[in-house]
């Protein structure tokens, strides 16, 4: 048994299958960071830190003739989103019900998705994660309130990257509002905005809940590193006669290796 303690849950094998499938289904569409940045792992729950190859500048030696430097590492973050599942609903699933109520699981999956995206694309200072837009030295490009000239904004972001010597292909992470507008908008002449953006970006365009505005990133590799300890998993906490308490859990670190390899596209002030 591992630390997720799944064997202790009053859940049948079929019930676990339903839960795992539902979780994957709810997580996959929104995990935008994994679609755009380098991903390594999973390295296991035991992985505690990412090697940065650096030491603190302070000599901590207390002995004459000895130099001592402490290694600097980036600690992995443990992310957990708790939810409950009704035992009555699980019993229904065992009988073959196809509409088992997993509302709390769905909400927990969304929280994990947004937490991962927010940390990677923006920042999570308390967790030691300097995100992509917070690290970028480029001034953010501010889009129009009505999404007018959105292609111009994206093209300017790409040109800014090219000018900085950052090669493509590029990827585009669209926050909720930007995504909705992009997919429903046709430019003059009826050409879909999404298709026009594809021609500019030359790489994936992804739905990124948790992102404010949009972010253009280089996909050449080596610029952004998401290191997974334990990949997203479902574990067991406790149960009573009515519900089983479970959680989604993952551990990871994120590093920006080339800060200039991304440009943010922000909504106008007042629309954020």
């Amino acid at each position, binding site marked *: *048994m*591992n630390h*997720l303690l*799944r*064997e202790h*849950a009053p*859940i049948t*094998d079929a019930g*676990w*299958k339903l839960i*795992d499938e539902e*979780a*994957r289904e709810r*997580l*996959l569409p929104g*995990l935008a960071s*994994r*679609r*755009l*940045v*380098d*991903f390594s*792992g*999973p390295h*296991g729950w035991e992985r505690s830190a990412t090697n940065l190859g650096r030491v603190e500048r302070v000599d901590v030696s207390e002995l004459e003739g000895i130099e001592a430097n402490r290694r600097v590492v980036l600690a992995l973050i443990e992310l957990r989103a708790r939810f409950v599942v009704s035992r009555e609903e699980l019993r229904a699933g065992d009988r073959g019900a196809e509409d088992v109520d997993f509302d709390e699981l769905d909400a927990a999956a969304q929280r994990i998705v947004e937490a991962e995206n927010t940390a990677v694309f923006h920042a999570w200072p308390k967790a030691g994660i300097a995100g992509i837009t917070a690290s970028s030295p480029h001034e953010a490009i501010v889009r129009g309130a009505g999404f007018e000239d959105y292609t111009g904004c994206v093209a300017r972001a790409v040109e800014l990257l090219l000018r900085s010597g950052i090669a493509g292909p590029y*990827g585009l992470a669209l926050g909720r509002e930007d995504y909705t507008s992009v*997919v429903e908008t046709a430019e003059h002449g009826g050409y879909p905005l*999404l298709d026009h953006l594809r021609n500019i970006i030359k*790489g*994936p*365009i*992804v*739905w990124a809940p948790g992102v404010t505005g949009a972010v253009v990133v280089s*996909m050449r590799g080596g610029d952004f590193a998401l290191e*997974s300890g*334990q*990949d*997203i*998993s*479902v*574990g067991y906490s406790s149960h009573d006669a009515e519900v089983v308490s479970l959680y989604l859990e993952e551990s990871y670190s994120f590093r920006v290796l080339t800060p200039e390899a991304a440009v943010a596209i922000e909504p106008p002030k007042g629309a954020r």
Partner: protein
Amino acid sequence: MGFDQYHEPPDELPEQTRTFARLCASLTEEAEAIGWYEQRLAIESDPEAKAVMADAVGEEYKHFSMDLEFLLRRTPKWREIARGVLFQPGDIVEHGEAAEAGAGGEADGDGDGDGGEHSPAGAPTEADVGGGSLDIGSLRGQGL
């Protein structure tokens, strides 16, 4: 082109099983190549030829490792067992038994090495309920 890696009709197999079978076949081929190179190296007397083949067998080991890593990522329980066996000093067989027990294998259902005292017969094991990982990993390049 043959399709010998499939034991069942390919049309009836899910896509991920077909991929898994291809990598299993690739792993077998790499292992065969390693065996062949080791034999050739054992009898080759020309040092230059030996150096070339020694370099080539290194590639085969790399490919073998990559295939193995792929297969283990897709099978969390076997990955747990492999973690207890690979790169461990000491008795390989003992490590194998202990790792199997730790992963909910036949030696000890609850993995605490006590003979399964806390796991009564019929209780679910990690193999039954899955390791817990949703095995999502990298989605790089997948867009709208």
